[in-house]
């Protein structure tokens, strides 16, 4: 399953860090962050719970860049 989320991040380097952090999160098969379009595309592993994974992704991202925001509901 692939999903795209709107994000808010201020600098290009921070976006790269968010991408790294998201990739390492459990339940994420792959992640791409586009700083220019302010979007994050996440590919989940089989059977992963989207909400749980995204909460973990947000936490991991906040750790590397505490100014960032990911909008998922």
């Amino acid at each position: 399953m692939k999903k795209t989320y709107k994000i808010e991040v201020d600098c290009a380097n921070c976006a790269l860090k968010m991408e790294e952090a998201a990739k390492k999160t459990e339940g994420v098969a792959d992640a791409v962050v586009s700083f220019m379009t302010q979007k994050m595309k996440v590919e989940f592993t089989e059977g992963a719970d989207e909400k749980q994974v995204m909460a973990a992704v947000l936490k991991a991202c906040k750790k590397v860049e505490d100014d960032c925001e990911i909008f998922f509901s």
Partner: protein
Amino acid sequence: MTKKQKKVLYRIIISAVLLVILHFVPVEGYARFLLYLIPYAVIGYDILRKAVLGVLHGEVFDENFLMAVATVGAMALGVYQVTKGEPGEFAEGVAVMLFYQVGELFQSVAVGKSRRNISALMDIRPDYANVQDEDGNWVRTDPEDVEIGTIILVQPGEKIPIDGVVAEGNSSLNTAALTGESKPRTVHEGDTVISGCVNLNGVLKIQTSREFGESTVAKILELVENSGMKKAQTEKFITKFAKYYTPAVCCSALALAVLPPIINGLMGNACNWESWLIRALTFLVISCPCALVISIPLSFFGGIGGAGAAGILVKGSNYLEALARAEIVVFDKTGTLTEGVFKVTQCQVSSETDLTESEVLRLAAYAESFSTHPISKSLREAYGGEINRSLVSDVEEIGGHGVLASVEGKKIAAGNGKLMQRLHIPFRETDSVGTVVYVAVDGTYAGYLLISDVVKEQSQAAIASLKKAGVKKTVMLTGDSRRVAETIADQLGIDAVKSELLPGEKVSAVEELLENKSKKGQLVFVGDGINDAPVLTRADIGVAMGALGSDAAIEAADIVLMDDDPMKLVRAIRISRKTLRIVYENIVFALGIKAICLILGALGFAGMWLAIFADVGVMVLAVLNAVRCLQVKK
């Protein structure tokens, strides 16, 4: 400016003013340090906080950390000078932080602005659809809620929100937002219209044929919004580079601060701790990788945005990057280099008759007026006038030969050479390329009409420009007969032709070409999206042309040209080259200046002020250069 940006702006102004005032305040020693701490805190508190948080989270080497270490180091050095009884130098530390913030603010404003520019270029999202409610009043509804088959009303000046068919009304449409083409398109009842066009004059009632999510406009928006996700090689390189670069620089700075003084000490010279520490701090300020990290994605994004404004949709930076290395361009013939519609291109009257060209055409059109064959349709179109079918009688269609009919009492035979032979009518066979319709009137050969696919006006110029742009080989694939294919290829100046291909054979033809190209070169396939989705996928870069409304093509292609003009491909290559040139300029420029400044800094020739230029100045210049990608020559 956003709220966040405004806040930073105020902080910059406050601390800049404080810095100027403090310059004239005659305070010495620790009091001076404490006073300078005020502007320092105002401008740098968030950077320091992020640096500390970063370290706590194990993210040691980032630009916040670099800035924090450099400025705290500079302030500490000032305190050290005070302990020795000298007047401490505190302004530099504050100034570095101040300029860093100015640079960040500039970057954020510039990026935000180009993002808005690009969205404005692609401003095709319709806000509402006019739908009739139970009482018959037209109400504005969310396009997402409109079901297939609903009648929607589009007033002049409004955007068509959903794909559909005109149920009532005539108007002209502005397709500029989709195709970059400013010529309006006229539509009448029964015509298919696509979403995203702007209705110019008449009121249209449209029966929707798709849901909003499946409509052209939604597909295009999705494509554009996802374009940033496919990253170019260059972008990936910079990401990797930044990962190793920052730690490397921090280690070098540490070595620069510690090793020379120790070596000096061991050799019995003065250690000079202070001067080497300053050099190390300068080193840190210079080294910030921001200029590269921001300007490269910005360049690609600008290039994609600029291309979008010209009616060229690129699905990712990787394709934009690859297009610059186009080596072989393979064209599908029908619909790509040719119009894909059959027209009467020649009318030759035999010397044995006194009929004129238009009379021969008229008689042939009348004779064929009951036929539904595409050839008959072309004849009727070429004739153009109203056909009075009561004048036609005794129609007899002979499969594979042609038609016999009586028109205004004359016996007309219209068909291929076999028909003439069958009727024993002597005629002169022509070797013109295309479908030939021979016409005989009352048993005498009257002439022939040549019907062929028309080559697009711009095709020849497009091939020539591709060659000029450095494309090594142009190839044409077609299912058409060899004679037709070779004539067209000669006419257009195409290098190689593969004709009489079945749809499946096109893929193997492309695979063969892929094997023979150079390793770095790219194979571009251009098709009209009908029946060639597998080839589009197989080529390095698949370009679908005139894809308005053709979903399969939008899905399979990497680049979509919104209208039928083959010159757009040349334009796409130019945009790609320009973008790449700017990207390389930025890499060379930013790395070059930094390398020079780093060496000067390490040798002690560059002070803090040069360091600030190397960081912020280079970034500002790189961003300004990147913004140029957005500008596309009309």
